């Protein structure tokens, strides 16, 4: 629905009050990331803890959601249990279109339900339902029951948490429609703290299209660019897993807790290998004709007499890196088995994978023993990792309770912080060098997608600190505008500034198209303001020694450059947010 304001549903789980409110700001923050930050500022109590019932859990979509292909993501914002600061996590599935067709620009959930509940939202339905009987179920069981309970198959999203979220682990994700996730920084724990097992959004409304023929013509141009040109072929073909081979060839693939950056054994987990033996089919987020979701299978022999079951599991580069190369597991089916356990537990795959890589090295060095780990951790031992993931989800003992809060929490207790592969949160799968390490360590989401540090690292040498800071700030600005639309970042090659401007104008948001630069600046500023207001201090972020001990295709990593860039980028972020000295 094209409108000059935001239509927001506020659901208070404590009082069970549900309020629909119109909020201004379309032409200053656009939607998505900008809208989430604006709503966070309005509803958050910065000094209170992340699990205070009053804290908001926000889901926001953008002005072009549903109107154009790949405008198919939802921004989730909350105060993170990982660092007790502002956080954003992005997810797809059917979440964005469902929210669009439920006729809300955003959903704000506050309070804490008296017992485990589900929130059900549609254009003609807003309901809270007690589902205490599903508390404790893994996501496979919960998904099946929830699908049966609610109407609208195909035109709804079911966001849910597993045991990790119920236990409020900072590594708990929110799963959307089985194969997509709001993965990082503990959104699942926030739902757990609210006693909210599931959110079902039924997209059951429809809207008139903008007048005139422009919109249909622009749509066709975008659709053609997405499907008939080479611009998106990477995602349509092998998908992101194609990066495993490329990173390995560059000697930039983190392997065995970043003790290596290349290994011929990674042939067993490349995107090509997955496609050859394990790829079952593809799927798409609603509104995306590219269909980058790659679904593999594992089969399990559960009786001697050749009795098997099979399961379908989605995979991506980041997952394969985190529980494949990082754990020395070089067989694609074993990687899928580990991902499957994380999926059932409702864990983000990346953080626990990288955490277990640290634990394996610490175990090998004798800093922790089987008394802590309960299973003997060894690189390549998929069975132990599958069990260890369940221990992380359930917090079986003190060691796993600490580890599930983040590798650095465990390292603070047991030692080994020097070799913890943590960049603000557990690292992403790119050991490309200095600019990426600083970019993820300081980035607002601590994501490789905050800005393209990994691609800057691959440019010819001769870079200066000033150039790198300019690049990171400028690149982030472009990306936050896209995530305010809310576009999938895989479409950034198609959605240039000119194309976005054309799209916005064609549906009646000409005023937004005319002010894209100003709006992008404001969104970037507001997001950082929220992060700093909730306690972020870039100078307190450290980049562990392991990152300067490694070597990639460029040779050894330059520690001095890391420190200089970290200081300059951190200062620039603080200035940008309006918190510079004297202000």
């Amino acid at each position, binding site marked *: *629905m094209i409108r000059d304001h935001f239509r927001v549903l506020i659901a208070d789980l404590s009082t069970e009050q549900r309020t629909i409110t119109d909020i201004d700001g379309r032409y200053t923050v656009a939607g998505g990331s900008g809208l989430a930050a604006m709503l966070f500022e309005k509803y958050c109590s910065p000094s209170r803890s992340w699990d205070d019932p009053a804290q908001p859990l926000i889901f926001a979509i953008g002005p072009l959601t*549903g*109107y154009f*292909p790949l405008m198919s993501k939802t921004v989730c914002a909350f105060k993170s249990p990982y660092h007790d600061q502002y956080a954003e996590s992005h997810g797809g599935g059917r979440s964005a*279109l469902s929210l*669009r*067709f439920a006729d809300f620009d955003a959903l704000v959930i506050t309070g804490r339900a008296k017992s485990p509940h589900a929130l059900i939202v549609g254009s*003609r339905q807003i309901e809270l339902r007690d589902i205490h009987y599903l508390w404790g179920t893994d996501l496979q069981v919960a998904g*099946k029951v929830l*699908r049966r309970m609610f109407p609208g*198959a*195909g*035109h709804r999203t079911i966001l849910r948490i597993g045991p990790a979220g119920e236990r409020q682990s900072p590594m708990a994700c929110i799963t959307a429609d089985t194969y997509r996730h709001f993965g990082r920084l503990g959104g699942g724990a926030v739902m757990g703290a609210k006693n909210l097992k599931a959110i079902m959004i039924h*997209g*059951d*409304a*429809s*809207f*008139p*299209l903008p007048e005139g023929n422009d919109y*249909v013509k622009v*749509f066709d141009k975008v*659709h053609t660019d997405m*499907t008939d040109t080479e611009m998106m072929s990477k995602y349509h073909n092998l998908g992101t897993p194609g990066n495993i081979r490329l990173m390995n060839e560059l000697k930039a693939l983190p392997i065995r807790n970043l003790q290596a950056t290349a290994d011929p054994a990674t042939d067993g987990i490349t995107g090509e290998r997955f496609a050859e033996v394990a790829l079952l*089919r*593809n*799927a*798409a*987020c*609603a*509104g*995306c*004709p*590219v*269909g980058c*979701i790659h679904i593999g299978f594992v089969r399990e022999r559960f009786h001697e007499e050749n009795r098997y079951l099979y399961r*379908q599991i989605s995979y991506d580069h980041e997952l394969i890196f985190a529980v494949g190369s990082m754990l020395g597991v070089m067989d694609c089916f074993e990687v899928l088995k580990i991902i499957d356990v994380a999926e059932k537990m409702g864990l983000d795959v990346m953080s626990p994978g990288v955490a277990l890589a640290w634990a394996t090295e610490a175990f090998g060095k004798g800093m922790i023993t089987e008394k802590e780990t309960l299973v003997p951790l060894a690189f390549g031992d998929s069975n132990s990792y599958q069990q260890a993931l369940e221990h992380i989800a359930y917090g079986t003992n003190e060691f796993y309770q600490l580890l599930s809060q983040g590798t650095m929490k465990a390292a603070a207790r047991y030692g080994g912080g020097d070799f913890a592969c943590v960049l603000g949160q557990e690292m992403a799968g790119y050991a490309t060098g200095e600019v990426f390490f600083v970019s993820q360590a300081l980035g607002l989401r601590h994501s490789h997608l905050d800005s393209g540090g990994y691609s800057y690292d691959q440019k010819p040498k001769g870079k200066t600190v000033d150039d790198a800071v300019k690049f990171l700030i400028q690149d982030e600005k472009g990306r936050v505008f896209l995530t305010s639309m809310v576009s999938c970042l895989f479409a950034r090659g198609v959605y240039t500034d000119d194309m976005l401007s054309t799209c916005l104008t064609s549906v009646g948001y000409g005023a937004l198209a005319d002010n894209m630069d100003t709006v992008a600046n404001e969104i970037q500023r507001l997001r950082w303001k929220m992060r700093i207001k909730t306690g972020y201090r870039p100078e307190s972020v450290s980049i562990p020694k392991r990152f300067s001990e490694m070597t990639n295709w460029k040779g050894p990593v330059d520690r001095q450059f890391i420190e200089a860039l970290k200081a300059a980028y951190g200062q620039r972020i603080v200035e940008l947010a309006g918190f510079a000295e004297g202000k």
Partner: protein
Amino acid sequence: MSHDEKRTNAMKILTTPRMERCIGCHACSLACARLIHKRLSWDTAGIRIRSSGGLSTGFEARTCLACSPAPCVAVCPTNAFSQRKGGGVIARKKLCIRCGACAKACPVDAIYLDASGEPFVCIHCGKCVPYCPHDCLEHTESSRGAAAAGQETTNAGEAEA
């Protein structure tokens, strides 16, 4: 377009022969709503996609199978739905009284009623076909028999959306 081509096109129907390839992007539904019904929707469309769990795991399309004679036509009290040559219906919204009888009569749940009771059904125009990224859909000559004598509508193919 020649008269013969027009006539052939009028006889074509939408089929969904390769739904095993479907990735659930909803591009077909969105295209139908956008191009035929001038709506932003995945409901008010002649083809709608839903997930099918269980053993077959994947997606299925809810769309008109081009019955001839069509049960929805038989129950329409105002002739808002009339038999289309080659199967399916011609819908005239001006005549529709929103009784919903057509949707109840459809054996495959291919007719969507919006909140006001307005019916949406495939008119077999084929406009959704090029938007499917995996060629799940086809706009093809009907292989079935024509409508029973006396039940055909003369201006088939000029369906009113």
